[in-house]
């Protein structure tokens, strides 16, 4: 079991693509797809082999021991996140093989894609604060470049906006890490937690909390840090939109927040309350802003803000049921939102527009796209037996049982709003009167296959809710998050306390 291959396989793939695929562009897709398939398989192996290793695998890089080196830590939460990320990455890469023919510079696209994946896998696996920052920047900088990939003025503007806001908040995170480092003299997450355990909660920590909430909050696109998302996500090519909305905001945002605030700081109440508030605001504002959008992808972007709010309130409740709901919604949203973005890409590929006012009556000409969008719509709106129903139900029940009745009611009501704006998509794009946009091109095989697989996953992934499966695979993850600083106890035996050898 080698954790570093999650990082070096896509990294190597990225540079191999740059080296070999510049002249023969088809090699790029082959290398990228092979790398994605490899790490997808390894992430499944890692997930199923983890219980045999006692729920924690720790690899030190460069042969030293922590805290003098960077460690890669695989526990239940990171193994789960790896599957989510690499599953969506593989399907997006598969979709991109033919989709990207509409652009020039195929090899650029796949090289940046692989770098983004490297960064995300790194963020998930790392056990080191500064390393987290570095990997976050790797994936963000590739994301900025990918958002601007079409090089239209609108896309460049979106990318610039994203880059500026991202850079400011990354600096905030770096500042927060610097404060922690100056206070504890260590960068290893578990060691920081261990040092803080002995001193209680110094006032300095509240500054760090604030910096991290703003920093990772922007990466999560929580209201009021959401302004970049509705520009950036629609501007990117569809497979990248699927990656950004499906997994990037969850990896750099939600996962980092959970890992740091739950596992290192022990879930301080004040932070949970702030996240609860921001999550609720995101649900409401994201939901209502989606209703008025006419751009298909922009609507999906606002919808992401709303849905990420559900994930965040799930975690912010701090109860096992809430965390279960948050985790499930994180996984399910990754599936159906990437499906919907891929669908919007297929519509744009075929008709050359994504303005809902020009579309209409596509259900007869684009049967696969229409059917998979319907599955996505039903899932995101929470119609049983599709997966979104279960996660939303659990979050709402968790809200009410934790005494947050108002939040629960808001979550339930906005769920209806979600249905409303997706019915708008259905009516204006696939049913209703035929619009002015014509189907110019057929959706190719690879794109269709990726969409069908994701649509099938929308149904199949509901099976996680079967009690025996849930008990075996999901409960350990919930325990990892709920165990709070038990993460530190698990890493502590690996810590070298004897000074430099």
């Amino acid at each position, binding site marked *: 079991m*080698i954790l*570093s291959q999650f990082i070096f396989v896509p990294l190597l793939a990225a*540079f191999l693509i740059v080296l070999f695929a510049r002249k023969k562009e088809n090699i790029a897709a082959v290398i990228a797809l092979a790398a994605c398939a490899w790490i997808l398989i390894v992430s499944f192996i890692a997930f199923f082999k983890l219980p045999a290793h006692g729920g924690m695998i720790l690899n030190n890089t460069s042969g030293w021991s922590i805290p003098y080196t960077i460690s890669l830590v695989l526990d239940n939460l990171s193994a789960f996140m790896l599957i989510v990320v690499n599953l969506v990455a593989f399907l997006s890469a598969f979709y991109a093989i033919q989709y990207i023919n509409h652009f020039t510079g195929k090899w650029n696209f796949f090289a940046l894609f692989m770098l983004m994946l490297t960064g995300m896998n790194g963020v998930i696996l790392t056990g080191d604060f500064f390393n987290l920052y570095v990997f976050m920047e790797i994936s963000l900088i590739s994301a900025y470049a990918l958002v601007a990939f079409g090089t239209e003025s609108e896309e460049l503007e979106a990318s610039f906006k994203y880059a500026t806001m991202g850079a400011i908040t990354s600096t905030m995170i770096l500042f927060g890490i610097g404060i922690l480092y100056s206070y504890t003299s260590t960068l290893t997450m578990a060691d920081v937690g261990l040092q803080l355990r002995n001193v209680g909660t110094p006032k300095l920590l509240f500054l760090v909390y604030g910096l991290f909430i703003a920093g990772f909050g922007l990466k999560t696109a929580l209201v009021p840090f959401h302004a970049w998302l509705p520009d950036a996500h629609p501007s990117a090519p569809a497979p990248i939109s699927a990656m950004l909305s499906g997994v990037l905001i969850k990896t750099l945002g939600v996962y980092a927040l959970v890992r740091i605030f739950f596992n290192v700081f022990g879930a301080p109440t004040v932070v949970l309350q702030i996240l609860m508030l921001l999550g609720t605001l995101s649900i409401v504002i994201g939901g209502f802003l989606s209703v008025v959008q006419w751009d298909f992808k922009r609507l999906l972007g606002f919808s992401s803000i709303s849905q990420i709010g559900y994930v965040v309130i799930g975690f912010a409740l701090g109860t096992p049921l809430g965390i279960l709901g948050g985790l499930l919604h994180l996984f399910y949203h990754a599936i159906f939102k990437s499906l919907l973005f891929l669908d919007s890409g297929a519509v744009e590929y075929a008709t050359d527009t994504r303005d809902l006012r020009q579309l209409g009556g596509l259900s007869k000409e684009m049967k696969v796209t229409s059917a998979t969008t319907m599955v996505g719509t039903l899932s995101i709106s929470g119609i049983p037996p599709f997966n979104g129903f279960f996660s939303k139900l659990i979050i709402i029940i968790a809200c009410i049982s934790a005494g947050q009745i108002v939040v629960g009611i808001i979550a339930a009501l906005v769920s209806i709003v979600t249905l409303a704006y997706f019915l708008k998509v259905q009516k204006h794009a696939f049913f209703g009167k035929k619009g002015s946009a014509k189907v110019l091109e057929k959706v190719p095989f690879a794109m269709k296959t990726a969409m069908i697989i994701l649509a099938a996953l929308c149904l199949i992934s509901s099976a996680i809710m079967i009690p025996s499966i849930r008990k075996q695979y999901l409960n350990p993850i919930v325990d990892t998050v709920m165990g709070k600083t038990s993460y530190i106890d698990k890493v502590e035996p690996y810590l070298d306390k004897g000074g430099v050898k």
Partner: protein
Amino acid sequence: MQNNFPNEGMSVIVKTITRFTVWLIFLYGLYIVLHGHLSPGGGFAGGVIIALSYVHLTLAYGKNFVLARVDKFAMNSLESIAAILFVLTGIVGLYVVGNFLANFMGIGKLYTLISAGYIPMLNIFICVKVGMGLYLVFYYLASFKPQEG
């Protein structure tokens, strides 16, 4: 060196002075890289200095003068090759020692040039990667022409 583009770049004074200084800058960059494990500096800093010597040459003589001597494609390839070699060094460490990027070479005698295991080698890879990368960034930004209108 014969200059096929005498009308590009800056004045004769700048060109003459550049002829003396550019080697010094390049040599200083190499020194920083090769002594990275002994004194402050290393692959990144040295790579930046080496890239700056090219930038210096480009500013004084114009970009065609430099491009007639170094190939852009080769620079691009070298950059990727250096990155791949770095990752491969890490993988060798993984299979020889058991940890990614672990040292698999003898550490030698302290304060001598050939010491510190694989660190000088990694410094050279980083130097090539950073040097080529930075120069290419400079080159592409310099040759960017905004569209009219």
